[in-house]
């Protein structure tokens, strides 16, 4: 216990990057205890004070882009500029107390070895101190604060993360001491990715796949799984049903670390949101805070891309909406986006249209698989 504590005293000082890690409950508890002791020490010092809480800023201005030349891996990260929660600052006292309140709740949850949903946490806090937590939003924001303070993931704080992710294909996952799960015999529904990050962390992975295909949409995933696409092209299919959750990104990252030679290829709609989803897998996002960028993966863009459009029927295009244009705008202004991605966005905006992956079905349901296979074989990804 004692040595844990001394080690955690420095748990953030040696980093240039700031990130929240998955930390075992005992260590999270120790970090909280250190916080309490530190608070009391400063409160009881000869020159007593109420210590400010240094939080890593979750703002774009504090984000940096890392381009690694060697690994082609780029990611967004938060630098260690700090925003402060101070009791003494005007109008900030509430936020300060909230952090402690949530810390207490999480501490108790960790002690009980339970997990809660953010909604449950909200209700508990609403019941306990309604004046501090009038809405779920306040709880969510404070949890982010706590993550930024303790530099551990939400999951480590005992907050339940349900995953929307699915995986299928030539991957065998084995929880130590349990029966192995063969993801190639899981039907069209695939295998659910657990929200239990530590379980994912423990998985023993095995694959003979040559590619990982990240699919934006559940339905496309289902189609490919039903067609057993992964047997035509030895691959692993993964989807987060839209914007990726932590667990899905975590598992993808784990697989890519375990098998660094497998290219990760993304199949997304030809619209700004599709690219944004790809980018979240690829770079992480600032809004996900400190938990985000650690799981950046070198995802390549397989399709749909501008040069695929001629094969799509005219009727499958729909005009861009305002929201699309907004996303396009912010993608264009992003520092991290590579040029050939930006060109695609420009093309979307210029054409004023968008198309969904499903448009490929115009050529029959089996066309999708052929399309991906052809692209993979021709290394047609960017």
């Amino acid at each position, binding site marked *: 216990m004692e040595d844990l504590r001394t080690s955690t005293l420095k748990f953030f000082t040696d980093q240039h990057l700031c990130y929240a890690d998955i930390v075992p409950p005992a260590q999270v508890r120790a970090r909280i205890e250190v916080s309490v002791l530190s608070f009391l020490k400063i409160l009881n010092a000869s020159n007593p004070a109420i210590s400010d809480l240094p939080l890593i800023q979750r703002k774009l201005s504090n984000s940096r882009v890392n381009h690694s030349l060697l690994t082609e891996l780029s990611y967004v990260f938060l630098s260690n500029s700090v925003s402060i929660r101070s009791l003494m600052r005007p109008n900030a006292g509430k936020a300060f107390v909230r952090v402690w309140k949530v810390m207490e709740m999480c501490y108790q949850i960790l002690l009980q070895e339970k997990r809660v949903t953010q909604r449950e946490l909200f209700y508990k806090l609403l019941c306990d101190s*309604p004046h501090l937590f009038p809405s779920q939003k306040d709880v969510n924001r404070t949890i982010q604060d706590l993550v930024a303070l303790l530099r551990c993931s939400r999951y480590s704080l005992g907050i339940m993360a349900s995953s929307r992710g699915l995986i299928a294909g030539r991957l065998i996952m084995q929880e130590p001491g349990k029966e192995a799960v063969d993801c190639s015999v899981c039907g069209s529904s695939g295998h659910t990715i657990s929200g239990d990050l530590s379980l994912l962390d423990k998985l023993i992975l095995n694959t003979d796949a040559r590619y990982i295909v990240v699919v934006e949409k559940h339905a496309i995933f289902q189609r490919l799984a039903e067609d057993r696409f992964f047997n035509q092209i030895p691959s692993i299919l993964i989807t987060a049903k839209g914007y990726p959750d932590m667990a899905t990104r975590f598992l993808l990252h784990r697989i890519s670390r375990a098998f660094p030679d497998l290219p990760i290829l993304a199949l997304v709609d030809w619209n700004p949101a599709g690219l944004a989803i790809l980018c979240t897998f690829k770079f992480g996002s600032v809004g996900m805070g400190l938990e985000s960028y650690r799981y950046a993966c070198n995802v390549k863009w397989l399709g749909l891309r501008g040069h695929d459009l001629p094969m799509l029927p005219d009727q499958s295009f729909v005009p861009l909406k305002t929201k699309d244009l907004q996303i396009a705008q912010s993608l264009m202004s992003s520092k991290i986006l590579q040029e050939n991605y930006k060109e695609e966005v420009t093309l979307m905006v210029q054409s004023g249209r968008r198309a969904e992956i499903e448009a490929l079905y115009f050529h029959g349901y089996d066309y999708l698989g052929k399309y991906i296979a052809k692209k993979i074989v021709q290394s047609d990804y960017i």
Partner: protein
Amino acid sequence: MEGKSMISESQPESAILLTKIKEFTRGLLVNLSNKHSPIILIDRFRNHCTLPDSICFCSSNLPCDKEVLTLCKETHVHRLDVMLRVLLIVQKLLQENKHSSKRDIYYMHPSVFLDQSVVDHAINDICVLMQCSRHNLNVVSAGNGLVMGWIRFVEGKKIFDCISSPNTAHPIPVYVEEIKDIVSVAQYILVVEKESVFHRLANDQFCNSNHCIVISGRGYPDIPTRRFLRLLVENLHIPAYCLVDCDPYGFDILTTYKFGSMQMAYDTKHLRVPEIYWLGAFPSDSEKYFVPKQCLLPLTAEDKRKIEAMLLRCYLQREVPQWRLELKMMLEKGVKFEIEALSVHALSFLTESYIPSKLHGQVNI
């Protein structure tokens, strides 16, 4: 259309349907060749009405009405156009033994379909015309449901071995008709409205102490979830209890499980689970279980409107008058609360107190 099918029961469902589709197509051609406008009659079903007196046949599974589509009205022709396009897709699906989601179908001609609801409507029309269920068309929902507990079954080749870790969530299989070899030692089925409650129970290791099956449809249940639940109830002959939020949406979800939805009324007989009991949360639970005041949220105008509309549903009065009384009480109290509100005193309140007290005290209706 005229000409009912004369297909023997031994044929697989998809072959029967393909024949029906062919007959439909042939019928169209015959009409056209004779220079007659095809006349397509579509039965209309409903699962409830708002007749104050209970002299209605909403529960009889009989159509309440018919729609007639001809080539004489533009809206009809558009509907027919959409229907035929969907039918073409369905025929391909059935022939190739593939499955597709409503969304997939929509995206194949987005500019013609204009909206997902148009496709949904056409799919329903086809089901009514072909006298089949949606899954017979090989149109499946992307499954949203979750299951855990004391059950093991096989879907196609995949084994769903929930028993080996009864507190782990598994997706409810999309191809319910392919489920076989159901093995269960569960004593009851617990249906929870929301995923978060499901995970709460999982986290509390609920199934360790309770031999049951827990199912969540994550909000309004999709078809596979409802069919799966029905399959379990029919096969296992164990009671099913439903735990929903104490708000109008929760109640509506409850009725969807028990009576089916209006949208799928034509197929209600395959989707509803009339045996289901309402476990909670009742409006009266807020006092019984000491839900703190600040967790009781006032009903919005929209909530009240929804409750008032639901109170008129004929099946409530006819089949579950007690549910109706509780719903009325919700309106009278003017507040709603979520399941989570019950857990504010202790995280495992649901597992340790609430559900057991409801089950053993027979406090369910």
